[in-house]
């Protein structure tokens, strides 16, 4: 540990401008710290369970991303913190402290975004943060009001899509658009879950859990997230997005107004089909609109995204319902043929338009 610390100290003095030296040595230090605590625990048979180890490691890592300007350590730190939160949650501990601790990466994020917004480091860091937020939002929920997670996640994913789209400057490659990728994929999965009736059963203020004990502050954080995230998504869409250029992102943000109506109505009336119907409709509309947008912009990726959404919805609804085996099989094949045909036609059209240009 001392040797690694000395090495990092020397790099701070002499080689701080070199990203390779900085990232490399900082990662080494992060792992050495883990090894040191683990070794002491082993030698003296102390240190309690995995949760306690991850907690001490996360605490010691927290200042390093900012201090050593290291994205790799920031990713390690978020991973360790998430793992700890999961272990602690299973153990029944409160994990509210996760949020202020996670904020330790914010100064590093700001610096990376300022200096190399388009760089690979910024992309990697955004991936880590996006995935951390997806997991942490779920772990952090106290679930006193059943079904609040629906609003929280809808808002979170819409916000990610909006921020990602606002940040994009026509760069290609999915890896450099982590917020859109995670937000979009998360949206599809979430909407599909919400297109079943089960998540809408017994939600809202009429079913507030009174038998278990809850953490007062954590319950309020729930409410704060449920109100704040969708609002933030709306604000981001209104202020940051260009109505023409970012039409697709605006489309995917439709879930926020939908949830703002569907959730309270379902909660008030206790009829789960309202939420379920709303999200079936949303998936279908957004899928078709994405498809249309792709055809108009002659973008194969967008076409396939829209088609996938519609196809998955069709398949899920089909296997959900009581149609016969042969009918389901046929529908499955038809969906496949549809995909193939659309791609074939579009690829031909794309090629001919390119030939026209040349």
């Amino acid at each position, binding site marked *: 540990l001392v040797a690694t*610390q000395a090495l990092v100290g020397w790099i701070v003095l002499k080689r701080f401008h070199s990203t390779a030296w900085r990232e490399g040595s900082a990662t080494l230090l992060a792992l050495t710290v883990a090894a040191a605590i683990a070794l002491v625990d082993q030698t003296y048979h102390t240190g309690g369970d995995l949760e306690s180890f991850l907690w001490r490691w996360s605490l010691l890592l927290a200042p390093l991303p900012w201090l050593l300007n290291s994205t790799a350590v920031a990713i390690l730190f978020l991973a360790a913190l998430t793992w700890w939160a999961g272990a602690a949650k299973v153990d029944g501990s409160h994990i509210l402290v996760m949020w202020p601790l996670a904020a330790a990466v914010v100064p590093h994020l700001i610096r990376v975004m300022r200096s190399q917004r388009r760089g690979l480091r910024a992309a990697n860091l955004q991936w880590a943060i996006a995935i951390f937020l997806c997991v942490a939002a779920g772990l952090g929920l106290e679930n006193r009001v059943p079904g609040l997670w629906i609003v929280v996640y809808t808002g979170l994913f819409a916000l990610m899509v909006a921020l990602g789209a606002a940040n994009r400057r026509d760069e290609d490659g999915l890896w450099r658009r982590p917020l859109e990728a995670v937000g979009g994929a998360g949206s599809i999965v979430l909407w599909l879950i919400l297109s079943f009736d089960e998540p809408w059963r017994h939600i809202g203020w009429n079913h507030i859990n009174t038998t278990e004990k809850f953490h007062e502050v954590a319950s309020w954080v729930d409410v704060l997230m449920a109100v704040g995230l969708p609002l933030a998504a709306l604000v981001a869409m209104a202020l940051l997005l260009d109505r023409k250029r970012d039409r697709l992102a605006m489309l995917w943000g439709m879930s926020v107004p939908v949830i703002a109506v569907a959730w309270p109505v379902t909660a008030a009336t206790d009829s789960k089909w309202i939420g379920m119907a709303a999200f079936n409709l949303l998936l279908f509309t957004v899928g078709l609109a994405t498809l249309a947008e792709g055809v108009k912009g002659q973008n194969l990726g967008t076409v396939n995204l829209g088609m996938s959404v519609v196809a998955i919805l069709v398949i899920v609804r089909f296997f959900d319902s009581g149609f016969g085996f042969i009918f389901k099989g046929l529908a499955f094949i038809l969906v496949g043929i549809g995909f193939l045909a659309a791609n074939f036609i579009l690829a031909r059209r794309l090629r001919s338009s390119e030939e026209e240009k040349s």
Partner: protein
Amino acid sequence: VNTKLRLALFVLVALVQLAVAGAAIYRSELALRTGEAFRFRIQPVDPADAFRGRYVAVRFAIDSAPLAEGTTVRPRKPVFIPIEVGADGYAAFGAADTKAPERGAYLRLRAGVVTPDEEGRTHVWVAMPFRRFYLNETLAPEAERAVWAGPRGRREASVSVRIRNGVGVIEELYIDDVPIHQWLAENREW
């Protein structure tokens, strides 16, 4: 942030890192060298930890202590439990209190559930902070098997713990009163 300040901050962080590891070593060494020794009856099982490898999870035969008269304990708050030697020579819990006793060995533990027993006395459940005995990858499962494959279905297993100022550190794991490494070396054939 200029280089000097950054270096100074880093030295501070590095010292904290060393202090965390060092404090754990110091506390444990102090308890091992100067602490009073007790023997706890246990049941070993053999899991693994993603970072720290194989260990024998030590389940203590005693896991709750009666509350001292007139004290109330809240879950997750620290309790102080005096350690006594029972009639069988193994360690036993005294009455739990919210203050450290003035004389004798004691452990500072985190209170779990508080429940009344059949006779109406209140008991506080505790988990020992030392619940693991790290062993070589191959030896850990063998140690568990050794206990469960004893002549009458199960051998006697115990750990010796050194206790000082509320801190306890496991010193050795025993099977039939023989230290584990010695026992495994002598009983290699099965």
